[in-house]
């Protein structure tokens, strides 16, 4: 990745790891590991092999390694082909190379509100669950009389069990 900007360079080498808070006004290159929080007036480069488990605020963030955490960039976020990111990203612009992997929420564009001011994204609001119509249980009126215990997979499910199961499913969806 091309580096530009300040001359100063801080590097966490492949054999090094930092745990805690890291602040600064220069570029940071991570080939090793950083856990905690990173706040930079400069660019963050997570190189291939580098692992960052931190909430990050920086001018630019370039990820060719792995990053787990929320990222706020003042100018841009770039995820390289081998980069892997899990977390919420906020930046005026985002670039991902084919092959990059990302899981999380994106807020991209010039009018991105600061993180605190953002309303809960609508994506998260699931539609109200439809009333469940429970079909008349086909449960046989007579339970097997054998002395063997009824397994969970037995077709003799009681209506109560059925309702319970459905309720769980709905709960998951409404998250």
């Amino acid at each position, binding site marked *: 990745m091309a580096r530009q900007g300040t001359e*100063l360079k801080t*590097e966490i*080498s492949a*054999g*090094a790891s930092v745990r805690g808070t890291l602040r*600064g006004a*220069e570029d940071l290159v991570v*080939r090793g590991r950083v856990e905690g929080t990173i706040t930079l007036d400069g660019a963050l480069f997570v190189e291939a092999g580098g692992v960052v488990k931190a909430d990050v605020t920086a001018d630019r963030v370039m990820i060719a390694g792995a990053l787990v955490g929320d990222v706020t960039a003042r100018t841009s976020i770039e995820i390289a082909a081998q980069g892997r990111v899990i977390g919420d990203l906020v930046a005026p612009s985002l670039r991902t190379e084919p092959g990059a992997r990302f899981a999380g929420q994106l807020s991209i564009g010039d009018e991105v509100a600061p993180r605190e001011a953002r309303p809960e994204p609508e994506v998260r609001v699931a539609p109200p669950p439809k009333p469940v119509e429970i079909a008349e249980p086909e449960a046989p009126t007579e339970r097997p009389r054998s002395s063997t215990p009824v397994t969970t997979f037995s077709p003799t499910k009681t209506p109560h069990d059925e309702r319970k199961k459905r309720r769980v499913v709905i709960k998951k969806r409404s998250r």
Partner: protein
Amino acid sequence: MEQRTTIGPTIEIDGDLVSEDPVTVQGRIRGTIEANALVVESGAHVDATVQAESVEVSGALDGKVEASGRIEITAEGRVTADLAGPRIVIADGAQFRGHIEMDKWRDKERS
């Protein structure tokens, strides 16, 4: 390519730094440092418990230093710390306040 961790002059770390590679500090670290070779450059400020093979201080260091090799405070160094290690150099002009232990280290089991 030589691997080296460099903490630049504007960087402040609160926490722990562990490195198998040599570490150069130009900024500020509060917490603990474990490294093979640690260099605290002029202008840097380390307020930490340090464990390393060798330590060279030209900046400010407060805390505690344990080295399996050499600890050197250069003429620019300002150190307020307890030092433990088999070889200790304090240059003419250096500032130092603290305790020095040179034989205890040899008996102690390394953790």
